[in-house]
């Protein structure tokens, strides 16, 4: 194992070395990195440079008081209702819960496909559609992710909020939804059309749809490694941390 690693490293070094002069030909030659570093390190201007792409990450949150209220209610729901249920659900063996997660992933692939199409990502739409076809059949209704494991067709979530973002619709402002958690005005509204693209909506009656959403949430939570607990424990203001993480994550997803 160790010798393999060493060999790989040695090989990597030999392979990489000839490309070094090439890399030096790029505009970097103009700057002497070492000197630049010595002058720049720890100087007051460093953050401007290192974290330059961070400007404009301001969180627009005019409903902060209402949002904090909803966040508080959700927090109580999490600790007193959802988390205990999720813990209980852990008696179901892990492989089964992973399979259940795959089934829910599979059920949302029509949403992923439709939104990829709407964003003109045709290749991606094809991949998601193929995933749906393969996993629904060979993967036994989606229980096994055959498409991902054997064909390396990766799942990529797309929703109508991302589609709206693709066409330049701004997020509006931050919004905490009851039970559903962090969202924005745009993404909250976008839940409605996505609801219609959800096969469960067409296949099952309303109570069944609700139960399936509940099971999905509990199953997801049972697979989670206490990430919300860590945030609450570690952060000075969990509300702000969750908000900013959500917005960062969302903005990334809209751009990609």
């Amino acid at each position: 194992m160790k010798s393999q690693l060493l060999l790989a490293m040695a090989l990597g070094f030999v392979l990489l070395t000839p490309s070094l002069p090439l890399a030096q030909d790029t505009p970097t030659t103009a700057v002497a990195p070492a000197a630049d570093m010595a002058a720049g390190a720890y100087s007051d201007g460093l953050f401007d440079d290192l974290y330059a792409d961070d400007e404009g990450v301001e969180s627009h949150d005019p409903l902060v008081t209402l949002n904090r209220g909803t966040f508080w209610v959700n927090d109580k729901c999490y600790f007193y209702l959802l988390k205990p249920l999720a813990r209980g659900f852990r008696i179901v063996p892990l492989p089964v819960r992973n399979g259940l997660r795959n089934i829910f992933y599979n059920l949302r692939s029509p949403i992923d496909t439709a939104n990829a199409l709407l964003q003109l990502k045709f290749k991606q739409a094809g991949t998601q559609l193929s995933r749906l076809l393969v996993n629904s059949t060979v993967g036994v209704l989606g229980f096994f992710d055959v498409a991902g494991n054997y064909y390396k067709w990766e799942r990529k979530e797309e929703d109508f909020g991302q589609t709206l973002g693709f066409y330049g619709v701004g997020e509006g402002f931050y919004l905490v939804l009851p039970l559903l958690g962090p969202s924005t005005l745009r993404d909250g509204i976008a839940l409605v059309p996505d609801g219609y693209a959800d096969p469960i909506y067409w296949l099952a009656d309303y109570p069944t749809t609700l139960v399936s959403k509940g099971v999905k949430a509990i199953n997801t939570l049972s697979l989670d490694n206490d990430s919300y607990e860590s945030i609450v424990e570690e952060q000075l203001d969990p509300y702000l941390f969750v908000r900013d993480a959500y917005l960062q994550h969302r903005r990334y997803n809209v751009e990609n």
Partner: protein
Amino acid sequence: MRKITVLALMTLLLMLSTLVAAATPSVDASGPKEQLQQTVEAILTVLRSDCPDEKQKNQEISALVRQRFDYQTMSQGVLGRNWMNTGEVDRSKFVALFSQLLEETYLGRIRSYKGQQIIYADAQIRQNRAEVDTFIKNDGVDIPVTYKLIPSESGWVVYDVVIEKVSLIRNYRSSYNDILRNKGMASLLEDMAVKLEELKARQEQPTQASV
């Protein structure tokens, strides 16, 4: 004959490139990926060791983290524009508190590590920054964790960690700036000190198996 010429040329090229490589101001013989991997693996080794003394384990991990994480730059990144408006005394207080907070957070996180496989992608180096993508294999789901590094005298050091496309420093900056705007620096420092005490108390308890 032609073969020999090609061979000679190739040897010459290889020698030249090695020379250039030696001339470039590389900080260490190994690159950012290897250095990061070395630190992470060393931490995991300490974690896996049977040493019963939790405190000693934490100290060892802490030393390893300190060697690879650039707390000074991170603190500056978190304060962002506010760094300029902060006095020398408050700055050093902030750096001290934030370093310890991050460390406690990291120690808490790494305890939940259950031997998942970590995959390292090759470092992407642009100018004097490097990014190393890693993936934690977690029950069939890959958690992407990207480390951003800059060179320093002691090798490549981490100035930001991006988990699931969320930059940790950026996130801290957003929330700390909000607290700064509403309550001011003195209050922020106080909150940080209180939180740090809480986290330290948590560390002293024996590790609980997560349910």
